[in-house]
């Protein structure tokens, strides 16, 4: 699925503008102080370099992330990794974000409207949106992103302009700087890479860096770093301090539109990733892209609805599962970058040094995130069980395909890359 320049940015920016990203940014600013800004720059650069590397390796029109990954891992592991990197991510992220939006709507806008009711209403509306023509979905996505980014920009400008001693907090000695705090910033960029040209690979991380670094600066100018670092809703605390009640309302709008942007963007990303499997010469014909267009969003919505109705939002398990799902996406992205390094080396005879180095750092960062997870055992158990289930599903998918179509055409696969 190829999109225009601005549209690719709107899709990639979805997760970046979600309440989850705002929590990561706020906590990082609180824990690391001014050091959060260079750390954010380093992580943005890492994603820009690896994203660009993957784009460079996809030389032909028919090439895709899936084919690139298949060249490193083989078809079944590539199907498995593609499935487990997007389906748990979109389902669990939707569950978590909708709950946050429900509370925001209830506490900021309509006290009498049940928070859970709003979560379901928004889920229903976003599911219905997916039934509309592609053009309308993409236009809606641009509106969601513009509302969220515009709101954050407004609060940042008002915050910096109105601060009595802007940046005073930046001069304080950061107390909780650790590699683990920096590694958490990796989660900010999860799901931000989508189809598009090489320019987008740099532009999304660059825009994210500018927007978040100024937001961190504004937040630190108003909120005590300790409070910012430990708050579960640092975005709302900062918004209230900056503009009072209107600030809360603007932040409420950012949260709801950011949630809508993240869910819509992730659903499109998921369709695009699974669509690449069906378009591959080795695996096509089982689920057409058209079928996925109508099947995937309602199934994800149903799974999300069931998880919410069963009370996962009130269970700490949700945080562990979401953390694991984000890591699974990062594993997929890291392996894609590794495949790209190997492919470019094969094609040109030269190792892409910057790309290889950023890939190595990214892989190290992902391993570090896994080992330093607060609930390491549960996170590893979730990741391995997802990989196991995904592997089984991939094997069934592949075997069914083999029954339905002639022998795999490996030459076609190589040609596509």
């Amino acid at each position, binding site marked *: 699925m190829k999109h225009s320049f601005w549209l690719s940015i709107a899709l990639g920016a979805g997760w970046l503008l979600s309440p989850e990203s705002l929590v990561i940014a706020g906590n990082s600013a609180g824990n690391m102080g001014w050091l959060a800004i260079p750390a954010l720059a380093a992580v943005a650069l890492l994603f820009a370099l690896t994203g660009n590397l993957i784009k460079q390796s996809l030389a032909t029109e028919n090439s895709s992330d899936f084919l690139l990954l298949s060249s490193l891992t083989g078809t079944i592991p590539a199907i498995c990794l593609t499935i487990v990197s997007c389906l748990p991510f979109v389902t669990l992220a939707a569950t978590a974000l909708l709950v946050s939006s429900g509370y925001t709507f209830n506490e900021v806008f309509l006290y009498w409207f049940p928070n859970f009711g709003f979560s379901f*209403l928004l889920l229903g509306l976003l*599911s219905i949106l*997916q039934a509309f023509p592609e053009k309308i979905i993409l236009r809606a996505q641009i509106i969601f992103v513009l509302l969220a980014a515009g709101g954050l920009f407004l609060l940042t400008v008002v915050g910096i302009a109105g601060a009595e001693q802007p940046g005073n907090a930046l001069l304080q000695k950061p107390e909780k700087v650790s590699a683990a705090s920096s590694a958490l910033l990796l989660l900010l960029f999860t799901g931000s890479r989508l189809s598009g040209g090489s320019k987008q690979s740099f532009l999304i991380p660059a825009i994210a860096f500018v927007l978040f670094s100024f937001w961190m600066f504004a937040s630190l100018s108003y909120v005590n770093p300790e409070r910012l670092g430990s708050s579960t809703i640092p975005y709302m605390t900062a918004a209230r301090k900056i503009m009072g009640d209107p600030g809360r309302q603007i932040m409420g709008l950012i949260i709801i539109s950011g949630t809508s942007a993240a869910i819509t963007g992730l659903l499109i990303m998921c369709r695009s990733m699974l669509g690449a499997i069906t378009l591959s010469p080795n695996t096509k014909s089982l689920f057409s892209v058209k079928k996925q267009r109508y099947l995937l969003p309602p199934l994800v919505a149903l799974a999300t609805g069931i998880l919410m109705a069963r009370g996962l939002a009130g269970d700490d398990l949700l945080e562990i599962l979401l953390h694991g799902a984000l890591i699974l996406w990062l594993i997929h992205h890291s392996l894609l970058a590794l495949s790209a390094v190997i492919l470019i080396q094969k094609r040109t005879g030269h190792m892409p040094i910057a790309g290889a180095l950023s890939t190595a750092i990214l892989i190290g960062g992902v391993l570090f995130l896994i080992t330093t997870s607060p609930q390491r055992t549960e996170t590893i158990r979730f990741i391995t069980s997802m990989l196991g289930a995904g592997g089984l599903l991939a094997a069934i998918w592949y075997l069914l395909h083999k029954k339905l179509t002639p022998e795999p055409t490996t030459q076609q696969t190589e040609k596509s890359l």
Partner: protein
Amino acid sequence: MKKLILLLSFLLLSAGLPAIASDVPTMSKEELKAQLNSSTLAILDVRSGRDWSSSEFKITGAVRVLGSEIAKWSKDYKKDQTIVLYCA
């Protein structure tokens, strides 16, 4: 296919309704405010996970307990006390 999507959307919205409806006696914020200084009042914040972490509001003086550990903390309160459970 569009009918299927609409049906699923309806099911989703219906699934959320039981969460909204409730038979448990409730108390308005005005009623609670009027009793805040009462020595027999105990406010227990039983929200957990994201239900707690996503909320901006925490009631002053509320004690945070886990709903699943009711057998453990229920012994700390007398039967004649007004116990307010804050769950969402």
